[in-house]
């Protein structure tokens, strides 16, 4: 049978449409993939000969992934025991199916029972064989559902009886929907303290519930694991003795109530020696808690830039509550973490007259970071760069600034009251310092700053392009492929963020890496400035190489690019008598074609400018520019004129004499438009006799401004700079997005001005007297490529090479240190809601800023 052409076309169309659809639930049964969390349950392995030892992941190291459409968790077993096998889902009793652990409906947040402590390592940088202050978890996992007043308590030890939602393990709250959860495991692992927040329509309340935890690290512990919860009515004294098959659960205790605010995130912080015990069970180990508050209406003092405000408080639940949301608390341990100036606050508890801050929608802290270096020079110890919980990271709530970039990115505040040297941290509770004041130089002469904690410049928000930050993860002593730019591959504390922004062909990077100690993006660019030389391009395509002098060793065009200020690397053109972008092919001619009532030509023609071009007209058009009439097809008006010795075809033009303030009309000398039958519009050229005759245009940026060259008398070249009156008139701003390395002590200004040698203008250009070929040819141009000196370390995915087309919207992310048959390595796990899959990869195996396939495993 022969298919008709139309049928084939429709079939192709259907296939094309199908290609844009997300995948159906995969073999793993993931459906509505959302978040991911890693559990590692330690245990005492009672060896027959050595008397036993503590094993980090005796009861499994598992990544749990939530599925909102099937209301369950699936577990990806991260430990490989057979080199011929890959990682796989924890199987169900019928091993053909992955295990499905039912949870609260629409699970959207998973909280591990978290503590920081010693883990085993095989890294040579830790000759004693262990790292302190690393992530440990208990066997209890807590799951929050969307729009749910319930929390699931799940057993997460990788043994058959444990992987389940515990009987009676659905905690039902009556105070409203649960908006955030976080849980701490006590250092003896005998209790878990769960914190959760509810919202009752007006106020947010933080609650605490203490649960029993089986002491798996105790030599006396033996499975089976408990499978149920037993609620206690009174936890004021010691708990009753219960069978080993069940865990006690204390009543909820209200810790704080915040009026007219909701709690958008919680994060337990590592317990300090000074933290008082909780008033539960006669004194359960306490600890501080990061609380992100959101006030859902614009602050009275700044309603135009913030649609909602917020703050982060570091509270100690063992102490008396701060009841007042306006900050007039008497709680001695109360802190407000501030992001915006002023930062010179009196010490606790408050910053007087501090401006409103945008809210935070996600909180996270980190394990201990050590000063490790990959070239064998790691000092013995090694010394600590940042203790666990030294910073509290927060994802800004993008919905709070009317779409402005000011409410995007990741910030960090200092969350420890002391420094690594034991001194008082006067910055406790305030925006952290980045390491841009670092000039660490490697033996190879390269600047690298991965092992430096800054003390001078406040960090900038870590931004990873446009879109929404979807996931955040951190891990200590992690390798990235070498060479990365100047970090030598080993990052003391590697941060990873996933973002939603993508390209239509699904190849743009959506996984980014950052230095979580230095609090800067990892820069993979070698340097700013002109990268490809300068070419003079003449109409017709002839290309010449201009000589800057000294036999080509002096650049013809001087370009200085402010690293972290100029947003893109692109091709720049400096054009002689160029058509002004935005004023090309404009429809409209002067009223009555410029004819006066008396039949003569008006003295001044007023050419109408549409709204879309008015900003350009008002800011970029100069006196003595040239305006050319065009017809409907966009062709220039042509007139045959008689000259001595014959006739010639010319394109008539008029000279600009002014522009009205709003850019709605361009005024020119008159022209008899009857000579141009069909004239219906115009275009404007930068005139040779204008004050700044040359256009500067970026291949991506578009019109950057206008400039002039050095004068013919040999005088100095005027400096062209961005921003300028044209870019400002067009509403283009250049917020700093990355801090360059500067000498210690330099305070980097947010914008503008040359400070202590730090380039703080996005772009400056200087051009000598141009070549005669340039000056004598309309639309001749100098072209050169500039690098902005910045390329964020990122992982693009090669969907073709990987054979998986749905990886264009990552979700939650996690990282974990694994020791298995493949050795010791950091593994990153990223959920992909767009394909109902999960990927894993070792950051050490990827190629930065290059499409990756081989290093990535997709779990369907």
């Amino acid at each position: 049978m022969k298919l008709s052409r139309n049928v084939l076309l429709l079939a192709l169309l259907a296939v094309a449409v199908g290609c844009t659809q997300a995948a159906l639930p995969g073999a793993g049964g993931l459906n509505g993939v959302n978040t991911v969390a890693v559990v590692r349950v330690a245990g005492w392995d009672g060896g027959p000969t050595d008397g036993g030892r503590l094993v980090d992941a005796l009861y499994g190291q598992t990544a749990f992934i939530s599925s909102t459409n099937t209301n369950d968790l699936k577990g990806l077993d991260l430990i490989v025991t057979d080199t011929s096998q890959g990682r796989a889902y924890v199987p169900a009793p019928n091993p053909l199916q992955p295990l499905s652990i039912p949870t609260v409906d629409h699970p959207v947040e998973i909280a591990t029972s978290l503590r920081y402590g010693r883990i085993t390592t095989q890294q040579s940088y830790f000759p004693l064989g262990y790292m302190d202050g690393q992530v440990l978890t208990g066997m209890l996992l807590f799951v929050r559902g969307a729009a749910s007043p319930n929390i699931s308590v799940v057993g997460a030890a990788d043994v058959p009886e444990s992987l389940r939602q515990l009987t009676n393990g659905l905690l039902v709250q009556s105070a409203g929907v649960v908006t955030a959860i976080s849980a701490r495991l006590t250092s003896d692992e005998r209790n878990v303290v769960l914190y959760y927040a509810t919202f009752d329509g007006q106020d947010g309340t933080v609650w605490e519930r203490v649960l029993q935890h089986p002491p798996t690290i105790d030599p006396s512990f033996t499975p089976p694991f408990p499978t149920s919860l037993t609620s206690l009515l009174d936890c004021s004294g010691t708990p009753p003795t219960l069978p080993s098959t069940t865990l006690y659960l204390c009543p909820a205790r209200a810790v704080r109530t915040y009026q007219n605010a909701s709690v958008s995130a919680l994060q337990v912080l590592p317990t300090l020696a000074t933290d008082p015990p909780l008033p539960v069970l006669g004194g359960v180990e306490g600890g501080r808690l990061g609380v992100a508050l959101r006030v859902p209406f614009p602050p009275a003092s700044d309603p135009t830039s913030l649609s909602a405000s917020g703050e982060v408080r570091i509270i100690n639940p063992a102490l008396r509550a701060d009841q007042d949301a306006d900050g007039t608390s008497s709680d001695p341990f109360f802190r407000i973490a501030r992001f915006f100036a002023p930062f010179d606050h009196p010490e606790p508890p408050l910053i007087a007259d501090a401006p409103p801050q945008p809210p935070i929608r996600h909180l996270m802290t980190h394990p201990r970071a050590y000063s490790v270096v990959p070239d064998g020079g790691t000092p013995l110890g090694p010394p600590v760069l940042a203790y666990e919980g030294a910073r509290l990271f927060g994802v800004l709530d993008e919905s709070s600034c009317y779409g402005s970039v000011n409410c995007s990115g990741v910030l960090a505040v200092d969350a420890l009251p002391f420094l690594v040297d034991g001194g008082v941290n006067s910055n406790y509770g305030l925006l952290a310092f980045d390491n841009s004041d670092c000039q660490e130089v490697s033996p190879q002469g390269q600047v690298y700053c991965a092992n430096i904690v800054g003390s001078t410049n406040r960090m900038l928000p870590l931004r990873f392009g446009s879109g929404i930050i979807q996931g955040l993860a951190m891990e200590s002593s992690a390798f990235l492929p070498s060479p990365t730019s100047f970090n030598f591959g080993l990052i003391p504390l590697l941060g990873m963020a996933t973002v939603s922004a993508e390209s239509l062909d699904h190849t743009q990077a959506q996984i980014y890496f950052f230095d979580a100690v230095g609090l800067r993006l990892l820069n993979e660019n070698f340097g700013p400035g002109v990268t490809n030389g300068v070419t003079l391009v003449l109409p017709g395509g002839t290309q010449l190489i201009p000589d800057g002098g000294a036999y080509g060793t002096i650049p013809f065009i001087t370009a200085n690019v402010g690293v972290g200020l100029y947003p893109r690397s692109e091709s720049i053109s400096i054009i002689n008598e160029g058509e002004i972008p935005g004023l090309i092919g404009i429809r409209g001619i002067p009223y009555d074609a410029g004819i006066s009532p008396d039949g003569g030509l008006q003295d001044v023609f007023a050419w109408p400018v549409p709204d879309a071009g008015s900003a350009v007209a008002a800011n970029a058009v100069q006196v003595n520019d040239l305006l050319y009439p065009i017809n409907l097809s966009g062709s220039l008006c042509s007139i045959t004129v008689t000259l001595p010795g014959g006739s010639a075809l010319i394109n008539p033009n008029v000279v600009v004499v002014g522009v009205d303030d709003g850019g709605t009309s361009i005024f020119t000398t008159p022209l008899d438009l009857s000579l141009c039958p069909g004239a219906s519009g115009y275009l404007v050229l930068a005139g040779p006799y204008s004050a700044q005759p040359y256009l500067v245009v970026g291949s991506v940026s578009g019109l950057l401004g206008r400039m002039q060259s050095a004068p013919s008398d040999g005088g100095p070249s005027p400096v062209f700079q961005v921003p300028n009156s044209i870019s400002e008139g067009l509403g283009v701003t250049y917020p700093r997005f990355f801090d360059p390395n500067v000498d210690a002590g330099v305070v980097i200004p947010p914008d503008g001005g040359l400070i202590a040698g730090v380039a703080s203008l996005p772009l400056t250009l200087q051009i000598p007297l141009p070549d005669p070929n340039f000056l004598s040819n309309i639309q001749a141009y100098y072209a050169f490529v500039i690098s902005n000196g910045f390329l964020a370390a990122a992982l693009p995915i090669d969907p073709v090479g990987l054979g998986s087309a749905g990886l264009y919207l990552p979700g939650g992310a996690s990282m974990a240190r694994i020791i298995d048959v493949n050795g010791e390595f950091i593994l990153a796990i990223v959920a992909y809601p767009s394909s109902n899959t999960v990927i894993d990869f070792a950051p050490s195996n990827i190629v930065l800023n290059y499409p990756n396939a081989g290093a990535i495993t997709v779990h369907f």
Partner: protein
Amino acid sequence: MRAPLKHRAPLLCCLLALSCAQYPPPNPSPADRFYFPTGLAFFLPPGSTSGILYVASSNYDRRYDQGNLIAVNLDRMQAPALPGVPPLAGLPPPGFTVADTAPAFQFTDLATATGDVVQIQSFAAEMLRDPVGYGGRPRLWVATRAEGDLLEPVSTDPGGEGLVCVPAGNNCVFSGLSVAVEQEPQGGTGQPAAPQPYGLGLSKEDSMVPGELWVTHIRPADSPPTSGLDLENYVVHLNARSPIPFVNVPNAFVPIGLGPGNSISVGRTNVWVSGRASLTQTSLDVLLRIVDRDNLQTYFPQLALQYATSQARGLAVRADESRIYLVGLFPDTLLVVDVKDPYSQYPTVTVVRAVPLPGGPNAVRLVERPGAGDVLAITCQNDGSLAIYDDDIGQLATIITGVGIAPYDVVVDQRGDAARFFVSNFDDGRVTVIDALLGGPGQPLLARIVAYLGQQQGCILATNDSTCVGSQ
């Protein structure tokens, strides 16, 4: 005296022949129930307790000749007694109390009367109500996707009843406006046309042209018709308040490129169009398109470059157009989009939040609360639920499960801090009534199902189900 058999036999043959030549008897959609209900509209007349609900039945399996549009007077319905539930006449006004845990009322008797029903084409999609209409008679507009690709205007009396097809009659199939006449295989050029009209939007009284109806459609128009070539999608605009509305070909059609539009909202100077999948992976994204009402140019803000759901369904726009709520599909997500310069030709749109939704989200309805954040109600077809988002917490505040099978559309009756949501259940045949408290001091946002309207259609569909015998 009876005729001899030999004389009667030719007579019988004649009768048989005649009967064979006759058309089958009319088989209109029933007026006492909904059948694959889709589009909804609501009106609260002065003096009414619970108002009038307009329900379009889409006749999805073409069991009947056409679909229909029923005006249900909610004060007149009857709910028979059920175990634990007394009989009830008329739906009580919205008044949800937390302590109220009574079972939902089953209003199986819609108590429809003459003038409450008109026939419309099958495959009804979205519906809206124009409170002004023409000649003192408000109008309902419903888009239908079956033969004729019709827009069907229906006028009502000021009290919301007395349905009449515009300009006359009670079968709007004969009076509907085709938006795809150029798709006629015989004589049509193919374009411009809007086959399978789907989404409707009406301009507001303070906009540049009040009473302007805008329409999206699902199937791309090809040229020549049925060729599958030169595909194009359009939005169509027309005067909804002219005595006899008409579609001006070609001036009423604005091309919007590849990728069907889904829902549409008419702003002061721009029209906001949500879109289904792009046709090719690298074509411009159509999650959101913006049409300038002045110069009729289409702007592609490429929202998918910020957050790539594969498709979009319903959208809701704040009255001041500073924010858009867009329902994304694959993955199922509510996209919160802030808009800068919404009245310019090229507004800046920024995705500022992405909220995971239960499976199969479709329609969204916005409730703006004075002095508090927005509330959104989203039907979730696969999950059988209504998800309610509260912008004060930036999360879903509640999910009403068990709403019905394949919830499709939702409309709201807002009264201060209380709201009543009506949800049409496509595969269930009923409309679910959900009362909500919109939150406030010490009072979280709560909602519960208080009633079902109509009868389940399962027994109509499951003709071999013995438990259904006698139930129709």
